[in-house]
C-alpha cells in the first residue's frame, strides 16, 4: 500500500484536511494506494508555489531548462520497468503497453527539451523610423488536469512543453490513477528541478480540479477528458479569462472499403476499439464498413475479438480490465441501451466467465445500428463497437461526419485517391490512412467540433504555452 502526497515547493505534504482517497487496482479490486483528497487550501498553496518559482524559471537560459527535461527523459527510460509496473496496476493496462507508454513519455520530455531554444519570435520591418519585434513569452502558471486512461503519458505531453517554454506547472492527476504522477514528481525533485516549478495536487475533479480551474492566479488550463467536464472547465476559465486547451471525447469512425487489405483492416479495427480496453479518446468506436463486405468482415472481426486474451494487467494479456467499478457500470449501461434501441449484439457483452474479480468485459460488437442511435452517437469509452454499413463514398462521409465529435478518423482502402478525397472531407483533427493511431510525438493532436480545440503534441503544442508580445520602438 502506497501513501501518496502532494508535491508543493519540492516538499511532500498530505492534504490539509488529512483526508485520503483510495486507488484501486482494477485487475484485482484491491486498494493499492491512498492519495491526498486535496481541496482549496492545498490548491492555493500549490499555485502560490508555482507563482513564486515562475520568474527565476522563465529567466533561465532555454538550454538549461532543456538540460533538466532531457535528464528527465533519459531517467524515465532507465526506470521504465518500475514506472510501467505501477502504471499497469493502477490503470489496468497490460504491462507491455504500460512500458511503451512510459517510453513515449520519455520521448515527449526529450522532444520538448529540444524545442526549448528553437521557438522564435519575429523581427518585423516597419521602414526607416521603427524597430519592431515580437517576443514569445511563457504564460506563467499553467494548470494541467490529466485523465486516467494514459496517466503518465498525458503528463508528458502537456507538462513538458509548458516547462520547456518557461512556465511553472500545477498538475491534478485523475483520482483513479494517482501513482505514476507521484513517482514522476519524486524523479524531478531528485534530478534538481527547482522548487515550485512542478507541483502536484491529488484529488477529485469536483474538489481539487474545480479549485484549480477556478483559481484566479493560474494563467491557462489544459484539460483532457469528457465533453461534460470540459464544459465546466471552460465555464470556470471564463471567470478569470484564462485560455483553455480542451481535448475532449470522440466517437470516431473507422471506415473500411471493400477494396481494403481485409486481413489488415480486421486487425486494425480490433486494435482501434479494444486497445486500452476501448478507453481511448481517439478509439475507432464506429466501424463504418462497405455494405458489400459487412457480413464477412464482422464475422472475421468477431472471431478475432474472441481470440483476444483478457486478464490482470501484470500477466500482460492483450486486454486488461476497465479502470474502475464506475466505468464498468457505465459501459454496461450502454450495453442495455444498445439492446433497447434494437441493435444486435453479435460478440461479447458480458464478463469473461473464468475471471472472478476485476472489472473485465469481453470485446463487444453491435450490428444493425442506425446512425442516430445513442450507441452510435455517444462516447461509451469501453470495448464496445457499433457497426454502420454504407453503400457509397458519399454515404460513408455523411455517416463519418454525422456526430457532434470530430477527433480522428480511420480510412482503409487501396485507392489512395479516394483516401485523400475523404481525408479532405472528414471533419476531424487527425486522419489515419491504412493504420489506425498512426502518428507520433511529433504530430499535432486535437479535435474538431465538440472534441475540443487547441493542439497538443508536436511543435503546435508550444503555441498553447506562450503568448506574443510586440515591441515597437520609434527612432527619433
Amino acid at each position, binding site marked *: 500500500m502506497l501513501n501518496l502526497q502532494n508535491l508543493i515547493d519540492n516538499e511532500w505534504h498530505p492534504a490539509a484536511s488529512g483526508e485520503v482517497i483510495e486507488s484501486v487496482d482494477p485487475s484485482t479490486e484491491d486498494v493499492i494506494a491512498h492519495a491526498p483528497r486535496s481541496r482549496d487550501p492545498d490548491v492555493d498553496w500549490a499555485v502560490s508555489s508555482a507563482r513564486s518559482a515562475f520568474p527565476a524559471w522563465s529567466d533561465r*537560459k*532555454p538550454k538549461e531548462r532543456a538540460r533538466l527535461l532531457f535528464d528527465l527523459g533519459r531517467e524515465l527510460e532507465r526506470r521504465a520497468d518500475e514506472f510501467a509496473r505501477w502504471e499497469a496496476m493502477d490503470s489496468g493496462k497490460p504491462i507491455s503497453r504500460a512500458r511503451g507508454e512510459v517510453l513515449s513519455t520519455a520521448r515527449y520530455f526529450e522532444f520538448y527539451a529540444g524545442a526549448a531554444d528553437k521557438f522564435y519570435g519575429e*523581427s*518585423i*520591418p*516597419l*521602414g526607416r523610423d521603427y524597430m519592431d*519585434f*515580437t517576443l514569445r513569452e511563457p504564460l506563467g502558471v499553467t494548470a494541467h488536469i490529466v485523465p486516467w486512461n494514459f496517466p503518465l503519458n498525458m503528463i508528458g505531453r502537456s507538462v513538458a512543453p509548458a516547462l520547456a517554454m518557461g512556465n511553472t506547472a500545477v498538475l491534478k492527476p485523475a483520482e483513479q490513477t494517482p501513482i505514476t504522477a507521484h513517482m514522476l514528481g519524486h524523479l524531478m525533485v531528485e534530478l534538481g528541478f527547482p522548487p515550485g516549478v512542478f507541483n502536484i495536487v491529488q484529488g477529485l475533479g469536483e474538489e481539487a480540479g474545480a479549485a484549480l480551474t477556478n483559481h484566479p492566479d493560474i494563467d491557462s488550463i489544459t484539460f483532457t477528458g469528457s465533453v461534460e467536464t470540459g464544459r465546466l472547465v471552460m465555464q470556470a476559465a471564463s471567470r478569470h479569462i484564462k485560455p483553455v486547451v480542451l481535448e475532449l471525447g470522440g466517437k470516431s469512425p473507422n471506415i473500411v472499403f471493400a477494396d481494403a487489405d481485409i486481413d489488415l483492416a480486421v486487425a486494425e479495427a480490433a486494435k482501434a476499439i479494444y486497445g486500452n480496453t476501448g478507453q481511448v479518446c481517439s478509439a475507432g468506436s464506429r466501424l463504418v464498413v462497405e455494405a458489400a463486405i459487412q457480413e464477412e468482415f464482422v464475422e472475421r472481426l468477431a472471431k478475432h475479438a474472441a481470440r483476444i486474451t483478457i486478464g490482470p494487467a501484470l500477466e500482460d494479456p492483450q486486454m486488461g480490465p476497465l479502470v474502475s467499478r464506475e466505468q464498468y457500470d457505465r459501459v454496461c449501461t450502454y450495453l442495455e441501451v444498445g439492446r433497447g434501441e434494437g441493435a444486435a449484439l453479435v460478440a461479447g457483452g458480458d464478463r469473461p466467465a473464468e475471471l472472478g474479480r476485476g472489472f473485465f468485459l469481453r470485446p463487444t460488437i453491435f450490428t444493425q445500428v442506425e446512425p442516430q442511435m445513442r450507441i452510435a452517437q455517444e462516447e461509451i469509452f469501453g470495448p464496445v463497437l457499433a457497426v454502420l454499413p454504407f453503400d457509397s463514398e458519399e454515404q460513408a462521409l455523411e455517416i463519418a461526419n454525422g456526430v457532434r465529435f470530430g477527433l480522428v478518423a480511420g480510412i482503409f482502402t487501396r485507392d489512395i485517391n479516394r483516401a485523400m478525397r475523404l481525408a479532405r472531407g472528414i471533419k476531424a483533427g487527425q486522419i489515419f490512412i491504412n493504420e489506425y493511431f498512426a502518428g507520433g510525438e511529433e504530430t499535432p493532436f486535437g479535435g474538431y467540433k465538440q472534441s475540443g480545440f487547441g493542439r497538443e503534441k508536436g511543435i503546435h503544442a508550444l503555441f498553447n504555452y506562450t503568448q506574443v508580445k510586440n515591441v515597437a520602438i520609434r527612432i527619433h
Partner: protein
Amino acid sequence: MFINGKFTEGQTTKRISVINPATEEEIGDVAKGTPEDIYSAVEAAREAQPAWQRIPGWEKATFLHTIAENIRDNLEELVHLLTLEEGKPVVENEEELDWVFNTFHYYAELGRHDRGRVLPPGDPDQFNFVIKDPYGVVGCITPWNYPLLLMAWKVAPALATGNTVVIKPSEFTPLTTLKVAELAFQHLPPGVVNVVTGYGADTGEVLVRHPDVQMIAFTGSLTTGQRIASLAAPQMKKLHLELGGKDPMVIGPDAEMEPAVRGLAYAALLNAGQVCTSTERVYVHEPMYAQFAEELTDFVSSLKLGNGLDENTDIGPMLRNHFREKVEGHISDALARGARMLVGGKPPESIEKGFFLEPAVLVDVNHDMRIMRDETFGPAIPLMPYSDFDEAIRLANDSPYGLGASLMSHDPKLIKRFYEEVQAGTIWINDPLTDNYAGPFGGMKMSGGARELGQEGLDEFTQPKHVHWDVAGGLKDYWYPYGPREEG
C-alpha cells in the same frame, strides 16, 4: 533600352533584328547594347537602391501590384507580341502572361509579410534577432523560352526584398521585355528597374563582372551558367542559377494508359519541347511498353504543327534553326546507335517557312545515346523499358541534371519512393509541369541550386543579418584581463 526611368537607344547605332520563328520574317529590331550601357544601367540601379530598400513594405507592395495591373491591362498586346517573337501557341502565351502578373501580385504580398526572427536568448540580458537584407543591385539575365515569366520570377522577389535590378533579356526575344518596361515599369522610381538589350559578350558578361552588381540571377543553359560562375567567382558574387535539365518521367506499373500518354505528350512537347523542365527521358514498365509506344505514337501523330497565332495549332516552331539542328543531331546519333524512330523527327513537308520539327517518338534507346544524356530542348520523346521500380529509380537518377521528375502512378508506396529517392527539385505525380506560386522551383545537381517562387524564391534575394544586442550594460566577466591584475 530602359535606363534610369528613360527609354534610350544607348551609346550605339548598331541594331539587332528580331525574327518570327514561325515565318522567319523580321518583326523588329533593338539596340545592340555596349558595356557603357551596362555601366549606365548599373549606376542608375545602385543610386536608386538605398531609397528603394527603405520604403515601407506596404508601399513596395503597391508598386508591385501596379506592375501586375499594368500587365493585366495589356494582356492581348503582350500575348500577341510574345507569340510573334517566341513562337509558341497563343494559349501557352496567355498562360505565361497569367503567371507573370500573378507573380508580381504574389510577391507584392509575400514581401509585405516577410519578416525576420527573434531568437530565444542565450542569456536573459541578451537580445538576438535576425533581419533580412537585400543584396543591392541584382543582374537578371533571362532566356528566350519564357521571356516574361522567368523575368517575373526574378524581378518580383528582387524588388519585393529591396533590391534594384538590371535586366538583360535574350537577344532572340527582347521585344516583350521592353514592352513590359514601357507598359508596367515606368511608374517605379527611376533606376529601380533597368533593361539593357544586347549580346552576351557585350552586355551579359559585363553585368556579371561589374563590381557594383552583388547578385546574378540567370536562367539558361549549363554552359552559360558555368561561364557565369567562373566570371563571378573572383568577386564571390551571389549566384542564382537555374540551368538545364534532362527530366525523367516514369510510367508506373499501375499507370492508366490514356492519362499517361496524354500527360507525357504535354510534358514533352509543350513549347515544342523548349522548356527547362520538359520531359526528355521516359521509362515505361516493360509489360506495357509496346502498347504504350503504339498509343503514344498515335496520339503524337494527331497533333497539329503551325503558327502559334492559329488557334488550331498544338505545337509551334522551334526558336531558331540551330536549335532544331541540335535535336536532329540527337536523333541521328540515337538512330546510328540502334534506336528506332516510330514517328516524326523531321521538318514538316507541308510548311515551307519557319523552324518547325515534327515531334519524334523513339524506342530502343539507351543511356549511351546523347538523346538520353544531353539536354535536347526540342520535340523528341525517347522511351526505354524498365523491369522493376528499383531500375526505374536508378535510371531516373542516372543524369548529371536534377531539375524536375514526373511519375504516373496511384500507388502510395511507389509515390513515396519516387519523391524520396529521385534527385530533382520538383516532383510531379500524375500532373507534370504544373507549378504553384507558393512552392519552390529549381534544380539539384548540375541544374543549379537556385529556387524561384514561394518563400524560398524570396529568401534567395536576401541575406540574413544576425544582431546580438546586450541590454544589460556594464562589464562582462569574459572580457580582458583573464588573470588577476594588481591595482594601479
